Structures are given as structure tokens and as C-alpha cells.
């Protein structure tokens, strides 16, 4: 390790770093703006200046930029000498010339990197008396507020938005002191990762619009480590609360998962917690069919009664949920018995998720975390639209394809942080990414080749690639696909770290099997292939681990209910109407006398229940979720649930305790349940490692959820009572609802907020990292439950009898339904966040313009989707499944029609259904339901 001298001290530093990184890693405070640990250096802001001396005799030295100067053995620097300090002070002074004096009304205030750096360099008195520049701000959509006057032209925003995240609609305009960062015209920012601007911009130019609507300073937020429930990626988050409302979500650094960035569904979607639909009291359906509010104890007794099985008379079953915690699902399964427990997947989805788990458990390939995904140097995506199903992974792939650039840079001995140089060097040379999917995707711009195919054809292409790698022949395949398969196989074989990604997203088992086969074939030839399979929900994989294969399906339960064999059905955090056609769910619920539903927000299933119990959301409860890479992660209550809301695990444990059930006699706390689940279910045995238990203390202290400046504890309830209530006590975790305790160096799973003296902004994170940009000092959060299978023997799951020959042509006049996911809209909960709701379109069906012409419809007109009625003989009879707005998309695979998953109107469509389409008469084009967010939002509502 090189030794450098800083202000007369010797330090050993990491080779390959720059001086700025070295200083920060050593714990020395060197101000900076434009450098970002995930985006490297460009030397634009001139803030990180230090003085470098040629040799010990040199006493003049020269100013160099710390972020652009590599560490070299024996190099001599001055960080705190007058010359360097004065330079840095004047840089801030020059940035301040045009910066407004508006910290008190700025949403960044109190967590502003510019404030911190200004104080750090000692610039106090403003000498400039001239006029300041002012800019016109833009409407940028419902998520982000724009306040251009605060810009210090560090270029971090465009570097993140364009270079890192692949956005195209934000740019630096004009030049010198009127440089402007914005869109070329007002309108919604198009990137799914735009929300990161809030954290990337070191000042208050881009701020969180929802936070501004009920503003709270960072120091007044109560926060706790949490996990995003938006999808199965499991990004780590830091939600902040005040007055019982979730105010905002910030990124919680996890080097192996989300790093520094979240997607906008995760960041802005969590506000569903504040929805008016949130249930506060239990409700019991009365004689008149209406719900009457109950207190929690009477509700509990009703449930105990309903669950009481008398000589096998009362048959109880439970439906769990892939969006509920492992613990709650485990308890429900315990309560009703494994044979009466359905995991709560749709019938279509259940085998797919079981398969995704089996394939990963059996695969000799590495199941990568996101950091490892970023190391891939050749990638094949089979059938998954990652930007909409696992968004953070799509962002990671944009970094993976840059490995080619880093290779080129290494040849020239450029360090990886030389961002501008490396981008210039590589231009558009990228590591190969191949996409086979049902239609276009947001990653197409970085793909070497992309082909749109029907799901079965994607699978055939995949199997062919696997065969080629295994040295078999693929002559059955159409010649055009043969060439493609050959190119893909060659690229994967030539790579050091090939990655295959697929998932449940196109609703086809063979596609995932093909992906696993390729990974396996590569492993037999290679040492390091990676396989990633996306699943839909935050705990889909955990749920499959809990039940193991062959669990009760909804169809099986429905059958039992229809046969009059079910009296009570307990549904845990699951809106069944999103899991199957309305008619069959109606039937299931009608055939059961007691329908008990535990959920957070009102929904159709809850409305059909006889007893509804308010379940605390992720922000008010603790739980473990298993992400798509098999990482068990713990989330903690950010605040205490309102009114009669309780965590589902508490409801369920209480019911079993009241019923004096033997199995729970030893279970008293949340940790007990986690431990019981770990010892009962081998696949989940690792979940206790997700986070320390409630006994953990940091140097003898609990970990505070409130900052040391948390204010107004007495005043904030003064409208109700002038007496300050006792702070709630958290017995279930090592965290405290208090300012007291120690927030330093604890395990990463227990990080409630970042702050360090002099570093109020999120840039203080580096004080919690072992080295700047590296792992958290206390270790990375989460426990991996999936380890690569040893041996390369072919597993049963990966081995269907793969045929490469094209299947029989589709019936003319029928279209195969292929799912099209939407980051805003396909997920159940995030659409209840007001900001996200503005971005949700009405349901649609995507067909090619040729098909549209044949059907006689235009973009924006309506199509009726009909199911051919098999029962009818001869004559063509059909049943209408849906009527949807047409969207033309010429990238869609031949014979396929894409439907918007999870959006209104598509409930009854099932992936792979073959439907007949016909023009809808009297179709009125839907207006998107947009709630105006902003006076200036003229362009905001126009999505069609």
C-alpha cells in the first residue's frame, strides 16, 4: 500500500484511489461537490483542492484537485495549509455569488451538502453586493420540484441522469454563469430513477415534491432501517416520519444491493402508508351488511371464536401473502396448519415462483447480488422487462455494460474513477447485452441485439443457446434464430463473468428453464456463470421457501370451499381480486361463512370480508422479507401504528395465545417467531442472520430513531394535550423511539439515519463506511439464503425435454396475451401514493399497427378481448374478458398482444391466454385519472 504524506503526517492508503477518496477514507474532512462515490471524478467544481509538493524541498507546491490526483507512494500533500484552505474558501464564495439566501425556505436546508461545505471551508461573510442571477423553474412532474437558482453547476445531476441512468430528457443548457439544468421543455422527467436527483444534487435544486407538501426537516424526522416493498429486489430504505405520517424515503446504503440509488416506485410509492384507504379500526360486518368498528380486544375475541375448531366441525384455512413478512405468514400457516395454508399466489404464478426457487436452489451458477451483477461482462435477458419488474437491476445493468470501457481504461492504466476520460475513451463500446423479450424495453439502447419473440420462442432461443454451449446441434431451429443463438452463445462463452437474467415476468416456465440451462451449460464449461431470476413481490421467494413445492393453490382452496368444506378463511394482507378472475374470487369468498381479512388498506377483498383487522404497514411493524436473490432482510417500525392497527404477526400470535395453542406457548416476542420459523423451515434457517435480535446493544446503548436535534416533542401534540406523553418503548428491536443511544458502527441492518458532525447531508454516509464507497463498518445488511449448489449435475427442474422445433402456428384471429408491466401501476400498493397515482395510465392493450389495421382500430380506440368459449360446438362463441384502450407498438412479437398488468380493466386477463380481439363500439377514450399536483402542471397531466 502506498504511503502518502498529508500535512506532515504519514498515511497508508489504498492503491488506485485518488486523494479525495484517500482523505475521506482516512476520516479527514476534504470538501467536494462534483465527485460521487458511485460516479467517479470529473474535476468540475474545483472544491476538493489540495496542495501537492514535488519533493520535501519544494515549499511552494501547486494546487491540484484531490479527486483527479491519484495517490502515489511518497507523494506529499497539504490539506489544511493556508493556500489550500484559502483556495477552497474562495471556491465556495464564488459559488455563493449567485446562490440565493433562502436556506430557511429550502427543502434541502438542514441536510444540504452546500451548507455543510460552506461551513467547513469557513466562508461566512458575503462580500458580493451585485444582482444575483435568477432562473425560471420548470414543472418536472409530480415527483420532483425544481428550484434552479440554487444550482452550483457541479453537473452531478446530468451525470447521474444521463451517464449513469441512461436518461435523455435532462441536460445542461447554456453556459457560464447562466448554465441551466432542466428539460428542453417543461414536463414529467422520463427516467424511472429521477428521484435519485433529490439525493445526488448537493443543493436544493431537485427536491422531493411530496415531502415539500408537508415539510419536515431531516433532524425532525424519526426514521428506522427499512426495506422497500415495491418489488422483489429488496432495496434498503430509510423512511422518515413526523406526526404519524410517512414523509419521505431516502436510500439506505447497502453495498451489495441498492448501493446509493433507488427507483422511483420505491422512493415515492411508500407513501401509500398515508393513504385515506388505510384501515384504523377493526370492522365486523353486521346484520345489515355494514361494518361496525370494534376495539382490538373484541376483534381478537371474534377471530378466536371464528378459528375455534370443534371436533373438526369448523374447517379453517388461511391464505398468506407474498407481500407480507415471513413471520406473519409463518404464524398464519401455524394457525391453520400447513395443509390448509395457501401462499396466496395466483394459480398462474404459483408454479412459476416455485420453479424460480427450485432453479436457483439447484443451479451451480452464482445467484448474484446487484454489486455482482454490475461485474458481469456479457448478459442475456430472457423475457423479463427489468425496468418495470425489478427496476434497480435495470439500473445495475447499465453499469455492467460499461465493463468493456473499464477494460479499455485498464489497458491505458486509467483508474476506474476517471469518469470523463473513460467515457470519452469507450464512446459507445459496451460489454454485450442481448435481450429476447415480448416487446421493446427501456434497456434496448444499450443492447447489442434485441429480438421480440413470443414467450415459447424466447424459450426455444434460450434452449438453443444452452445446446450450443454444450456442443449440441440446433438445426431444428429457424435459420434466423440459429444465427442469433450462435452470436449469444459465443459472447457468453467468451466472457469471464456471463450473466443470465430471466424471471416470472413473461409468465412462462420454459423461459426460466432455458435461462437456468444456459447458466448450467456455462458452469460446466466455465467457472463463474451467474443466474438471476426476478419474481414479482417483496417476499415472493420467501413465501415459496416457507411452503416448499406443492402448497395449496387458490384453485384447490376454492374447490374445498365449493364443496362446503371450509367454514373460516383467514386472508393475510392479500387482495385476492388481483390474483384471479373476479368471478372465481367472488365464488371462493361466497362459499365461506367467515372471511377474516388482515390488511393495511381497504381493498375489494377486505370489503368482502366478515371481519376486517387493520394490519400495520411495513413502516409501523417489523418483519423479514426474502428478496429475489434470496437475501433475508429485516425492516423495523419507523413509527408506532395509529389507533387499533397492529402488526399482522401480533394479531396472529394473539389469536393463537388466546386459543391456548400449544405451538406458541414458548413464543413471546418477534425474535421468538423468527427463531421458531428458522428452526421449523430448513429453507429459512438463515433468517435469524438478517439482523441482530432485540438484545443487541451498541456499546451498551439502544440505537436512536431520532436525531440528537429532534425538536418539538412537547409542542407537536400541544393541540391535544400540553402534557408530553411518554415515548413509546420498543421491546421488539434494538432501536429506540428516542434521541438517546448510539448511531455509530452498528451492523448495517440497524442504520436508522446518517449524520456525522459537520456532515448533515446524506454525504455523511462515508463516515459509516469502512472506506469511502465501501461496505458499512458494521457489515452489510441481510443474510443470503441461496448458495450455489455444489456439483454440476443436471437438476430435474432445469431439464424439460427441450424441443427447438417451432410449435404449431397459432389459430388465425387469435392473439397470445403477454404481460406488460409498468413501474407505475402494476404494483398493488405504490399506486396509492398520490404522487405515483398521477403517473398511472388507464389499462391498455398493445398491438402492432399491422394488427390494428387488420382489426380496423387506431391508437386510443377500444378493443374488446374475447375468450373463445370451448364449450360451444361449431359456431364461434366468445366471452368478453376485458375492453381496453389500444396502444400501437410495432415492437411487439408477432401474434402477441401486450396487456398492462395490474392496471384497471386487466384483472381478468391471464398471461398466455389466446384471445380474439374485436373493435369496441361506442368506445370513449379514457382520460387518465390525474390529480393536478401543481399549478404549473400544464404538461404534467398529458400522458396519452
Amino acid at each position, binding site marked *: 500500500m502506498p504511503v502518502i504524506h498529508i500535512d506532515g503526517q504519514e498515511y497508508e492508503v489504498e492503491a488506485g484511489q485518488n486523494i479525495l477518496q484517500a482523505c475521506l477514507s482516512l476520516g479527514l474532512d476534504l470538501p467536494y461537490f462534483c465527485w460521487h462515490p458511485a460516479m467517479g471524478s470529473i474535476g468540475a467544481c474545483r472544491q476538493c483542492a489540495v496542495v501537492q509538493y514535488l519533493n520535501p524541498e519544494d515549499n511552494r507546491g501547486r494546487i491540484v484537485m484531490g479527486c483527479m490526483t491519484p495517490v502515489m507512494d511518497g507523494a506529499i500533500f497539504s490539506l489544511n495549509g493556508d493556500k489550500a484552505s484559502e483556495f477552497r474558501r474562495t471556491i465556495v464564495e464564488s459559488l455563493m455569488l449567485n446562490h440565493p439566501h433562502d436556506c430557511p425556505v429550502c427543502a434541502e436546508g438542514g441536510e444540504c451538502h452546500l451548507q455543510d461545505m460552506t461551513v467547513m471551508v469557513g466562508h461566512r461573510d458575503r462580500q458580493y453586493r451585485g444582482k444575483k442571477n435568477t432562473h425560471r423553474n420548470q414543472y418536472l412532474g409530480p415527483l420532483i420540484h425544481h428550484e434552479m437558482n440554487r444550482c452550483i453547476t457541479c453537473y452531478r445531476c446530468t451525470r447521474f441522469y444521463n451517464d449513469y441512468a441512461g436518461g*435523455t430528457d435532462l*441536460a*445542461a*443548457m*447554456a*453556459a457560464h454563469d447562466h448554465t441551466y439544468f432542466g428539460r*428542453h*421543455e417543461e414536463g414529467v422527467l422520463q427516467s424511472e430513477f429521477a428521484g435519485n436527483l433529490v439525493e445526488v444534487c448537493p443543493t436544493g435544486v431537485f427536491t422531493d415534491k411530496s415531502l415539500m407538501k408537508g415539510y419536515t426537516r431531516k433532524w425532525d424526522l424519526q426514521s428506522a432501517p427499512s426495506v422497500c416493498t415495491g418489488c422483489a429486489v429488496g432495496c434498503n430504505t430509510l423512511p422518515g416520519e413526523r406526526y404519524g405520517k410517512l414523509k419521505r424515503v431516502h436510500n439506505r446504503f447497502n453495498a451489495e444491493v441498492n448501493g446509493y440509488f433507488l427507483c422511483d416506485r420505491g422512493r415515492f410509492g411508500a407513501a401509500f402508508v398515508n393513504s385515506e384507504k388505510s384501515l384504523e379500526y377493526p370492522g365486523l360486518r353486521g346484520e345489515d351488511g355494514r361494518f361496525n368498528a370494534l376495539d382490538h380486544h373484541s376483534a381478537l375475541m371474534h377471530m378466536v371464536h371464528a378459528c375455534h375448531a370443534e371436533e373438526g366441525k369448523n374447517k379453517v384455512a388461511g391464505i398468506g401473502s407474498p407481500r407480507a413478512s415471513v413471520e406473519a405468514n409463518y404464524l398464519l400457516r401455524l394457525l391453520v396448519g400447513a395443509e390448509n395454508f395457501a401462499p396466496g399466489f395466483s394459480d398462474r404464478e404459483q408454479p412459476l415462483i416455485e420453479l424460480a426457487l427450485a432453479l436457483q436452489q439447484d443451479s451451480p451458477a452464482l445467484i448474484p447480488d446487484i454489486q455482482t451483477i454490475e461485474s458481469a461482462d456479457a448478459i442475456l435477458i430472457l423475457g423479463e422487462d427489468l425496468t418495470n419488474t425489478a427496476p434497480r437491476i435495470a439500473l445495475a445493468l447499465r453499469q455492467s455494460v460499461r465493463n468493456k470501457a473499464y477494460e479499455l481504461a485498464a489497458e491505458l492504466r486509467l483508474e476506474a474513477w476517471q469518469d470523463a476520460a473513460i467515457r470519452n475513451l469507450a464512446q459507445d463500446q459496451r460489454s454485450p447485452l442481448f435481450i429476447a423479450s415480448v416487446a421493446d424495453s427501456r434497456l434496448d439502447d444499450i443492447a447489442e441485439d434485441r429480438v421480440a419473440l413470443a414467450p415459447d420462442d424466447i424459450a426455444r432461443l434460450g434452449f438453443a443457446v444452452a445446446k450450443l454451449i454444450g456442443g449440441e446441434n440446433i438445426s431444428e431451429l429457424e435459420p434466423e434464430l440459429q444465427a442469433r443463438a450462435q452470436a449469444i452463445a459465443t459472447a457468453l462463452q467468451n466472457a469471464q463473468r456471463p450473466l443470465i437474467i430471466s424471471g416470472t415476468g413473461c409468465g412462462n416456465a420454459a423461459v426460466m428453464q432455458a435461462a437456468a440451462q444456459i447458466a448450467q451449460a456455462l458452469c460446466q464449461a466455465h467457472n463463474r456463470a451467474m443466474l438471476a431470476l426476478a419474481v414479482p413481490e417483496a417476499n415472493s421467494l420467501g413465501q415459496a421457501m416457507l411452503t416448499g413445492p406443492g402448497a395449496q393453490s387458490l384453485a384447490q382452496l376454492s374447490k374445498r370451499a365449493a364443496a362446503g368444506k371450509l367454514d373460516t378463511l383467514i386472508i393475510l394482507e392479500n387482495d385476492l381480486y388481483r390474483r384471479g378472475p373476479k368471478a372465481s374470487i367472488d365464488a371462493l369468498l361466497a362459499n365461506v361463512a367467515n372471511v377474516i381479512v388482515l390488511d393495511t388498506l381497504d381493498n375489494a377483498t377486505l370489503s368482502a370480508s366478515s371481519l376486517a383487522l387493520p394490519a400495520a404497514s411495513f413502516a409501523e411493524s417489523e418483519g423479514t422479507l426474502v428478496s429475489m436473490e434470496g437475501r433475508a432482510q429485516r425492516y423495523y417500525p419507523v413509527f408506532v401504528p395509529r389507533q387499533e392497527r397492529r402488526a399482522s404477526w401480533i394479531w396472529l400470535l394473539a389469536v393463537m395465545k388466546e386459543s391456548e395453542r400449544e405451538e406458541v406457548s414458548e413464543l413471546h416476542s418477534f425474535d421468538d417467531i423468527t427463531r421458531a420459523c428458522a428452526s421449523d423451515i430448513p429453507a429459512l434457517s438463515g433468517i435469524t442472520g438478517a439482523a441482530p435480535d432485540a438484545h443487541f446493544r451498541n456499546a451498551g446503548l439502544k440505537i436512536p430513531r431520532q436525531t440528537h436535534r429532534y425538536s418539538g416533542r412537547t409542542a407537536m401534540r400541544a393541540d391535544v394535550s400540553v402534557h408530553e406523553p411518554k415515548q413509546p418503548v420498543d421491546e421488539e428491536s434494538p432501536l429506540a423511539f428516542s434521541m438517546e443511544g448510539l448511531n455509530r458502527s452498528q451492523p448495517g441492518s440497524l442504520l436508522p439515519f446518517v449524520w456525522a458532525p459537520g456532515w448533515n447531508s446524506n454525504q455523511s454516509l462515508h463516515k459509516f463506511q469502512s472506506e469511502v464507497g465501501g461496505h458499512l463498518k458494521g457489515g452489510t445488511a441481510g443474510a443470503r439464503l441461496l448458495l450455489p449448489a455444489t456439483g454440476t449435475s443436471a437438476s430435474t427442474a432445469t431439464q424439460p425435454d427441450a424441443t427447438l422445433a417451432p410449435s404449431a402456428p397459432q389459430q388465425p384471429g387469435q392473439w397470445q396475451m403477454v404481460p406488460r408491466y409498468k413501474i407505475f401501476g402494476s404494483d398493488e400498493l405504490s399506486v396509492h401514493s398520490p404522487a405515483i397515482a398521477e403517473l398511472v395510465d388507464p389499462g391498455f392493450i398493445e398491438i402492432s399497427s399491422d394488427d390494428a389495421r387488420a382489426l380496423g382500430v387506431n391508437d386510443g380506440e377500444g378493443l374488446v378481448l374475447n375468450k373463445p368459449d370451448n364449450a360451444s360446438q361449431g359456431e364461434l362463441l366468445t366471452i368478453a374478458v376485458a375492453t381496453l384502450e389500444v396502444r400501437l407498438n410495432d415492437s411487439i412479437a408477432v401474434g402477441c398482444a401486450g396487456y398492462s398488468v395490474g392496471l384497471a380493466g386487466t384483472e381478468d386477463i391471464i398471461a398466455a391466454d389466446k384471445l380474439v380481439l374485436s373493435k369496441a363500439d361506442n368506445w370513449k377514450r379514457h382520460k387518465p385519472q390525474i390529480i393536478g399536483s401543481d399549478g404549473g402542471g400544464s404538461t404534467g397531466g398529458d400522458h396519452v
Partner: protein
Amino acid sequence: MSELIPALSEAEIAAIDAELSHVPVPAGAAIDALKIVQAHRGWISDESLNAIAKHLGMSAAELDGIATFYTLIFRRPVGEKVILLCNSVTCWMKGCDALQQTITEQLGIGMGETTTDNKYTLLPMTCLGACDKAPVMMVGDDLHEEITAQSLQALFSNAGSGGET
């Protein structure tokens, strides 16, 4: 060729395509394309910008970043002749501020404004490279050196606001 013809004339497209044949990536012809369209239309409207961006396969934001970077690409309509008054160091020392005042009085326009008869637009310019003859300005394609209140008077004598030249 481009389906977006209405926003770009055939002559413009032909000229842009000629530039495109000289560059390895289409975005490399961005500045030339902007200059070509400006030569035909006097300025770059939002419609022109969008059409050029589409023709070059760039995003409008990216192209606008380039267009607004250069002082001599006009994103708003300008008069028949653009007055580029240098206000960089040398010309500033030699009194460009007072000269600007004179122009404003004579033509009735401030910086960034166009006379009502659409003859002149006044814009600042940082160094015309003729510092030895400071203060200087350009009117249309002509460089005027060592300008004084008198020479301005003569130059714009029959201009007046809205008057004839």
C-alpha cells in the same frame, strides 16, 4: 429519409445529410445542422430543434444543450442584423458600457432586444479577438473597430426606433 419533413425543408435536409456523411456519429453533425437551419430560418425554433434532434437520433434535451451553449445559435427570433457588442475585458476598459447606452438610446433596444422594425437585435459578446482595436462590435457580418459614440451615431443615424436605415 426523415418523416419529419414539414419542420425541415428538403434543402436543409440535403445540407445536413451532406454534413452527416463526414462524421462518424450523427451527433457529431449537431452544430453544423443547427447552423444550416439557422442560415435558412434565421433562428432555431422548438419545432426546428425537435426535427433536427430526430433527424440526428439525439434527444431534444441533448441538442438543446448544444444549441444554447453557443451564443451564435439563436433560440429566439432575431432581427435582420445582429449587433454583437463586445463586453469582455479590453472593451470593457475602453468603455463598452457607455457605448451600449448610446445604442440603446439610438435604437430603443436593450441587451437581448430587437427593434420594432425587426432590423436589429442587440447581444453581448465575449471578445471578438480584436482587442487591439477595442472597443469593437459586429453588425451583421461587419466588424466595427474603435467605435465611439460618434461612429455609432453615424452608423445608426437613420435607424431610429422603427425607422428606415
